[in-house]
């Protein structure tokens, strides 16, 4: 059986979760993987019909999605959840339920989400017509250490999806598409935005200075 896992997209409304989740779903299906997408909005019309947006109802909704994701991923299916899932504690609860859990934080600033306002909900929230709206009148607690953090501003959905796929390959969740004939070391030739950002934690001058210190210390 192929390795199942759960890919959990969290972020503000309008951050791009559903767009990315659908794109990743398509890319995974193209690889012949069995995938199921549970979208928060869709789940509310079926599995969680009748639930509102109180803290308790939101938690119940998320835990139900988590329960289904666990069932699916235990059986070799890639479960993709796309839900605001604003509370850290609840996400962590779901994480504890699922052995292979990959949290994807779609990190789009609130201002950008408001500007996009795909569903017109921010406008309604700001005029008071929608209550308990995450980011406006209800909190969003960003992950402290998501496995993948995707910045969407100024980048195409395809770039962001490729970043997620690249991470899954490098971490062994997916086989690289072109399996090398020898041990080329999985994921070696995959480069993504995240890898570039990692290398940029130091300025060139700082990098040179820290390297010189490490050399002097004998580490290099």
């Amino acid at each position, binding site marked *: 059986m192929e390795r199942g896992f759960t890919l959990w997209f969290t972020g503000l409304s309008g951050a791009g979760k559903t767009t990315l989740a659908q794109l990743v779903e398509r890319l995974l299906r193209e690889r012949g993987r069995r995938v199921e997408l549970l979208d928060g909005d869709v789940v509310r019309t079926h599995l969680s019909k009748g639930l509102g947006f109180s803290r308790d109802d939101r938690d119940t909704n998320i835990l139900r999605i988590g329960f289904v994701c666990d069932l699916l991923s235990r059986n070799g299916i890639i479960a993709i959840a796309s839900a605001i899932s604003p509370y850290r504690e609840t996400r962590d609860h779901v994480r504890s339920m699922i052995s292979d859990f990959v949290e994807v934080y779609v990190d789009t600033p609130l201002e950008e989400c408001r500007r996009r306002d795909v569903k017109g909900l921010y406008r309604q929230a700001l005029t008071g017509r929608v209550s308990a709206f995450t980011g406006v009148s209800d909190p969003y607690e960003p992950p*402290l250490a998501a496995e993948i953090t995707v910045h969407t501003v100024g980048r195409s959905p395809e770039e962001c999806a490729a970043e997620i796929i690249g991470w899954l390959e490098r971490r062994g969740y997916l086989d690289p598409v072109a399996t090398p*004939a020898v041990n080329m070391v999985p994921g070696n030739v995959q480069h993504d935005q995240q890898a570039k950002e990692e290398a940029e934690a*130091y300025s060139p001058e700082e990098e040179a200075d820290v390297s010189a210190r490490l050399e002097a210390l004998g580490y*290099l």
Partner: protein
Amino acid sequence: MEQTNSRRRVLVIGLDCAAPELVFERWRDQLPTFARLMDQGVYGRLESCIPPITVPAWMSMLTSKDPGELGIYGFRNRIEPTYRETAVANSTYVKERVVWDVLGNAGKHVVLVGIPCTYPPRPVNGEMVTCFLTPSLESEFTYPAALKQEVRAVVGEYLFDVRDFRTEDKQYLLDQIYLMTHRRFTLVRHLMQTRPWDFFMFVEMGTDRIHHGLWKYMDAEHRKHPGPTPLLHAIRDYYRYLDHQIADLLANVGDETTVLVVSDHGAKRMDGGICLNEWLIREGYLVLKNQPQGIVPLEKAEVDWERTRAWGAGGYYGRVFLNVRGREPNGCVAPEEYEALRDELTAKLEALGDENGQPIGTRVARPETTYKTVCNIAPDLIVLFGDLLWRSVGTIGHGAIHTFENDTGPDDANHAQYGMFIMRGAGVPAMGEVPAHHLMDIAPTILEALGVTVPPDMRGTPIQAALASATPNTPPGTRGETLVKS
């Protein structure tokens, strides 16, 4: 801030490179605080990862993942399959959840000081002061950012590391180490007293620096041991100083607080260096276009990449990279020759003896059989020369394979595969020495002590679970030697 005694708390005292044989045996009777902790709880050797190097080791300990899963193989890691692109590991490399992420999510207040690979600082549920990889005091080195001013107010100029480590002026080096340690403990005491912590951890680097800088003075088996000198007891005296400092800290925590003293690896004398790239040149694997003048790093040499099959990197352990067609830009090793070439290099490296041809016990590891998974760009071979009694020298132009002058200045010690742990606290029986554990057991041990569920993907097992079934005074190392988790 007044601490309540009813809450479960964990204090982790990290001593980089602290050697179990020094604390448990050689100086036990001169280290009353260490000895008391050992008497009150359990202690033993702590198997490090491969390679037993600071950054991957501390992160392996605190994520309960091996270096392959972390994709961190040393201080500098290849970021592209080219010949030049490497970068210094930093906190953004760490994609796995660290123990304090799990604790923060469980609502625990964490305070972290000086833990390697925490720069740049990331948000935590509490406070963080970053590590010796911080560029300078001008950098953002705390979370929250405002803590930086408080650090300055408490200790003045905080020292991330010792300055001018490669010096023959050992008194100057000692002064630097003591100053750094004094200021770190001052800051730690302040934060312990002013924050409502559930989990407090700090790492002192002075133990590592003093081993590398002064080991030869105390070790009669060291090639360069000068006989009795005023520096004979320098390392012992520093451990005694640490003992006093730790006693001070413990005066402010109750017996119910779980206290762990841990090191990321141990220490041993360094017999010399193996010039890895010189050897690869001699054996025909590495080809230069021009012979360099003097001793230079490989990066400064003109390498004939189209005819080079392998090159290496220096450090406390060696790394060998193969120049594979389709992977490296001018790769010349056909993919179908890859395994045979690794076999050949492994056999030759393991057979390479000392300057007299005597066997030194070199071990060569392969990433895919050493780690659970291999992320990012791993070396093709990892070489522990002389079982770490020898270091790897990456520079070329030595005119010899063996060197006894370090290419970066005096260095007396290398890392040993086993570090140490001591644990005392509520529910920890006074069992004395217990079988060895592995670095990856520490994060689950911390979570267990705080009553937080251990995530199922953590590789280690809480020490508490092993104690429940262990018998006292089992010969040390029994478990660790068969563990080979990384």
